[in-house]
């Protein structure tokens, strides 16, 4: 129950004097300048000019605005009211059900679809940020041939000549490369193409794929099979390098199910227990009750030892492993072993074996037929294609989606062999590295611009509907493939309607179709009869894999440094490189923005004699990459983790030439691990920006925690640490409680630090992106940040997350210091910020103990492309330079609810106001509501004994309070 000794960074751990000094400054020393120095004369002339201009402009009334009504008003649109449309966000081929908010035809925000089993009403950071890509001015805007702009008609004419049967004999030399395809209609079209051109081939490749799991299921069952987990049914979970809460398909649902078992009421101690063995700390590892840092190659040994233990082969002498074994044995049928997608097939096979032995199959997990209509091992598929390209056997290559020139493993030399292909057509959202090496480039529609169908990891099919006409000359994949089938004029809608409506009564289909599109989930009747592919079946037989496992040999330990690859937690495989929201999103745990790093453990850094921001050179098989070091407490020793997605050369204005390219070291044989790399210090330095030390609250007992057992024994443990002075000591006026008193509760037990709330807040509240240089000066504008704390030993720390936004103090220190009454207290307890009054003294920010106020040092929105103006939430003011801002508790949503309630002459119902962060949270950690109502959810949570406020010793009486973190450690493992 120790709550002391939390630390946020290595500097703080070591307590450097310089670091302490840096904390005392409100802003870094160079905060007053942007670029270049303005001298006195220039300053005076600028000031006098702007004063004169400001004076002049205020003398004349504003120019009259135009008001432009419809000619014929669309039926559904009420001006001023948003509409929500059900669709799905595709990532890695799989869909996440969403509701997209549209204001007068402009999509502005993504929310989860509560009716969709993969979303359950929540989203993730990628889905939230995907709306920014829609308006990205760097998206490809025109069809080009050899770099010159041309037309769709010109493409069709050319294509018709190419596809002439005389020329393209049965499709000899015709290859199609796609990303993962789950769309039934697209797969049907591809099959049709393959029928028309029997010698053609369809390849699928994505750099982040399920190859290991595929290979394992092939080795085990002789066929491909996916696993669907039910984390809500598991008492004990073992993660073998599996970040199932953030990066595996289905992670939004996983987070919901997993955290459902971690909400503990007073007097209870029933809670699930998570063991995680991993190399680089992930959010799954951070929330684990027991985390073991292990080099990537050691995971298999750990898995084998646990497997032997469960088979009854006796103790291993390792207390951690023995404890896991005993726990798993005690929870037969109620446990889950998850193998990570970055682990070799062997680990997956062992996980199959363990789950079978423990009787989990059919209980906590199911084997299902693959969701994809044509599942392949993608690295193999890409390799086959490249072999053909090398041999000169490929004449016509259609790359429909993806960026293989950038993402293909280095040893396959995709770019080199691509030159052997006579005609290359690339289809993508951006003109990227692959486009510039292809003859034709066709711009792809954004998923909010086109009809489509897609499936989720659990088998749910969604008809995706467009919210806006294509902003640029984009075509959908369906239209493109239709052109290859000789029907270039068919629209996506026609293609989908025909595919889904085959052999069906027209009226009945119309009804089912409308319902399916409306709900965002295909109606069961439509799916069962008309699905182009069956829903996944459930294999009843549990696999027998013991004999396969017996063949694995244990790996011998060595002292060479291993290099592991991971998709970047914010730009993924590089596809989001030009997305400013994701670039500026502090990466979970390391809090780096705008760059990728090489993660090392403190011990390995010492061994290599490097510190943060030193550049190391990593060499393997004659290829080398230089990457800046970031030391990550809790990382496995003798291992380096590199992140994919950076070092792009043609990503757009924001994404190009940023970070290093980890793909240039990756090999097809072992895409996630280099077992023997040469790592040396290069002597260079590279400046990184990590937001972890910005806005520090100086560690005053901020995170409180206990184990479930301790909590059951002493439910009032947070009370012991409470040091609130008596209320009458305050000099602030007493606010009489009224009908509504808004408050928030954040459960640290369930927060997984996934960042969905941060982007949701940014999207909802028109928060600008400031760029790396400004972020380096602590000027990032996020209203909501997730603080990360370590506790304990630097080599094996425990990790904590704490979302921090404006606490809406009842006695707010920011309010009395404002000279112009721009920040005031509302009768409902909101700490209001009135932008048009703010004169930018920043006194409020100085006086805020929580450091949650953000100042617009520049007019950050002024640099944005005009298309970005479409993205703004019209219900929130776009702030300009010189204005302070901060979390408003989504006051626009409160006002909407209040107006609706008043119109119906009733009170606002509990749960009617949902803040943007709360709506996005897959873990349900954030609850907002009326604390004046004792029966509201938030009041009940706040009355739990583990409720506490941060910095309450200052008598601020924050309206946002936290529920102390509870863990469920195994007493058999010493911590």
């Amino acid at each position: 129950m120790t709550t002391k000794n939390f630390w946020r960074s290595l500097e703080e751990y070591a307590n450097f004097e310089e670091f302490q000094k840096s904390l005392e400054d409100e802003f870094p020393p160079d905060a007053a300048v942007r670029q270049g120095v303005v001298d006195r004369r220039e300053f005076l002339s600028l000031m006098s000019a702007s004063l004169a201009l400001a004076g002049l402009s205020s003398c004349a009334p504003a120019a009259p605005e135009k008001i432009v009504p419809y000619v014929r008003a669309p039926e559904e649109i009420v001006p001023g009211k948003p509409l929500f449309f059900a669709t799905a966000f595709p990532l890695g081929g799989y869909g996440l059900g969403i509701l997209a908010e549209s204001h007068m035809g402009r999509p502005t925000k993504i929310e989860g679809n509560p009716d969709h089993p993969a979303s359950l009403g929540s989203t993730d950071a990628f889905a939230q940020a995907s709306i920014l890509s829609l308006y990205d001015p760097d998206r490809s805007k025109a069809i080009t041939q050899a770099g010159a702009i041309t037309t769709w008609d010109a493409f069709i004419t050319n294509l018709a000549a190419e596809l002439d049967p005389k020329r393209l004999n049965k499709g000899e030399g015709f290859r199609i490369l796609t990303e993962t395809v789950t769309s039934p209609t697209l797969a049907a079209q591809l099959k049709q193409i393959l029928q028309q051109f029997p010698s053609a081939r369809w390849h699928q490749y994505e750099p982040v794929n399920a190859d290991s799991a595929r290979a394992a299921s092939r080795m085990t069952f002789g066929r491909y099979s996916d696993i669907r987990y039910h984390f809500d049914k598991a008492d004990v979970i073992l993660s073998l390098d599996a970040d199932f809460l953030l990066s595996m398909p289905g992670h939004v649902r996983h987070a919901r199910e997993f955290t459902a078992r971690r909400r503990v009421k007073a007097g209870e101690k029933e809670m699930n227990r998570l063991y995680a063995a991993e190399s680089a700390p992930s959010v799954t590892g951070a929330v684990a009750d027991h985390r073991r840092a292990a080099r990537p190659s050691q995971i298999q040994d750990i898995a084998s030892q646990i497997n032997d233990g469960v088979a009854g082969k006796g103790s291993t002498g390792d207390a951690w492993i023995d404890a896991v074994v005993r726990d798993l044995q005690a929870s037969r049928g109620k446990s889950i072993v998850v193998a990570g997608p970055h682990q070799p097939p062997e680990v997956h096979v062992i996980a199959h074996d363990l789950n079978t032995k423990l009787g989990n199959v059919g209980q906590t997990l199911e084997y299902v037929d693959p969701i994809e209509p044509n599942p392949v091992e993608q690295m193999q598929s890409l390799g086959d294609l490249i072999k053909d390209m090398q041999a000169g056997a490929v004449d016509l290559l259609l790359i429909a989606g993806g960026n293989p020139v950038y993402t293909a493993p280095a040893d396959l030399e995709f770019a080199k062999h691509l030159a052997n292909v006579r005609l290359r057509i690339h289809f993508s959202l951006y003109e990227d590295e692959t486009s510039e090496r292809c003859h034709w480039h066709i711009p792809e529609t954004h998923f909010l611009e086109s009809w489509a169908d897609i499936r989720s990891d659990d088998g749910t099919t969604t008809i995706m509907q467009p919210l806006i006409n294509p902003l640029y000359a984009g075509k959908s994949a369906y239209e493109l493939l239709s052109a290859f089938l000789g029907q270039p004029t068919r629209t996506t809608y026609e293609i989908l309607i025909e595919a889904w409506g085959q052999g069906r009564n027209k009226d009945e289909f119309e009804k089912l179709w409308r319902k399916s599109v409306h709900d965002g989930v295909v109606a069961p009747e439509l799916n069962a009869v008309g699905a182009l592919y069956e829903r996944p079946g459930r294999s009843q037989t549990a696999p027998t894999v013991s004999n396969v496992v017996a063949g694995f040999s244990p790996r011998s330990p060595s002292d060479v440094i291993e290099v592991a690859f991971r998709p970047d937690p914010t730009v993924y495989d590089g596809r989001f490189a030009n997305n400013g929201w994701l670039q500026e999103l502090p990466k979970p745990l390391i809090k780096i923005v705008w760059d990728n790093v090489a993660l090392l453990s403190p011990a390995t850094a010492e061994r290599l004699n490097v510190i943060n921001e030193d550049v190391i050179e990593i060499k393997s098989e004659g290829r080398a990459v230089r990457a800046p070091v970031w030391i990550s407490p809790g990382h496995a020793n003798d291992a380096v983790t590199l992140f994919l997605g950076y070092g792009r050369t043609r990503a757009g204005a924001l994404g190009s030439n940023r970070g290093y390219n980890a793909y240039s070291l990756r090999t097809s044989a072992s895409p996630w691990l280099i077992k023997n790399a040469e790592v040396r210090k290069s002597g260079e330095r590279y400046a990184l920006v990590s937001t972890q030390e910005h806005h520090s609250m100086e560690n005053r007992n901020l995170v409180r925690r206990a184990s479930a057992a301790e909590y059951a024994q002493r439910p009032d443990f947070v009370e012991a640490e409470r040091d609130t002075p008596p209320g009458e000591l305050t000099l602030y006026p007493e606010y009489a409680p009224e009908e509504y008193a808004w408050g928030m509760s954040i459960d640290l037990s369930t927060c997984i630090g996934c960042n969905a709330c941060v982007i949701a807040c940014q999207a909802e509240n028109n928060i600008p992106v400031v760029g790396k240089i400004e972020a380096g000066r602590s000027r990032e504008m996020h209203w909501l940040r997730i603080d990360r704390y370590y506790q304990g030993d630097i080599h094996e720390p425990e990790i904590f997350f704490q979302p921090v936004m404006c606490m809406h103090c009842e006695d707010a220190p920011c309010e009395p210091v404002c000279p112009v009454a721009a920040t005031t207290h509302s009768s409902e307890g909101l700490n209001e910020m009135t932008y048009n009054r703010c004169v930018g003294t920043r006194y409020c920010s100085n006086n805020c103990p929580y450091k949650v106020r953000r100042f617009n040092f520049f007019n950050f929105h002024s640099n944005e492309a005009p298309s970005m103006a479409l993205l703004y939430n019209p219900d929130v003011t776009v702030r300009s330079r010189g204005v302070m801002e901060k979390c408003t508790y989504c006051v626009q949503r409160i006002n909407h609810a209040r107006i609706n309630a008043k119109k119906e002459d009733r009170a606002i119902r509990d749960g009617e106001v949902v803040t943007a962060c709360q709506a996005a949270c897959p873990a349900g950690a954030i609850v907002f509501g009326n604390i004046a109502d004792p029966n509201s959810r938030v009041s009940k949570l706040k009355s739990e004994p583990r409720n506490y406020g941060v910095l309450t010793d200052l008598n601020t009486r924050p309206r946002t309070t936290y529920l102390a973190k509870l863990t469920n450690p195994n007493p058999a493992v010493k911590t």
Partner: protein
Amino acid sequence: MQTGGQRVYMAQIFHRSTNTLSRVSIFGAVFIVAALTTVISILIRSPYFTEARVVRVQPVPFSHKHHVAGIGIDCRYCHTSVEESSFAGIPPTKTCMNCHSQVWADSPTLEPVRASFREDRSLEWTRVNNLPDFVYFDHSIHVRRGVSCTTCHGPVDQMPMTWRENTLFMEWCLECHRHPERFVQIRGQHVDSPRKLTNCSICHR
């Protein structure tokens, strides 16, 4: 200055009246500042600045007086969303054409309306009532709570060409938000306390 025992005096630079002038300006400064402030505060509230009661030129000389007082059309026939949305709604061309495809169907004054309908091109009206972008006004709740259209928009039924009746200054909004009972037109209608209605976030967010 002494030259050979003679005293020479320099001529006075300032006339004696300067003394009075300086005294008046020193003591008058207060009054001058006060006068200036008064003049400015009157000026910025004058129609020259506020454009209240200034008639706007529109593409079609639409007369509210004729349509409302003359024919008796309800406001909500055209401003359809006033009871459900923040925005009262400007009628689409289709609404005009409901009648004007039959009535005054050949009038040259209405040609822009017919052209809009024919060519599917919106009419561009000049905004009469406009609030700054940092102010969020909701028509529906004001109407629901018994504030009539004319309370803010004035005698629209007497406007041959439309003007803005009020300044739309914040002090004007607050007149009502501080004393809602004086303006709400339905007897017995519940009014919120001025404390609630003057929360900044009621209008600013």
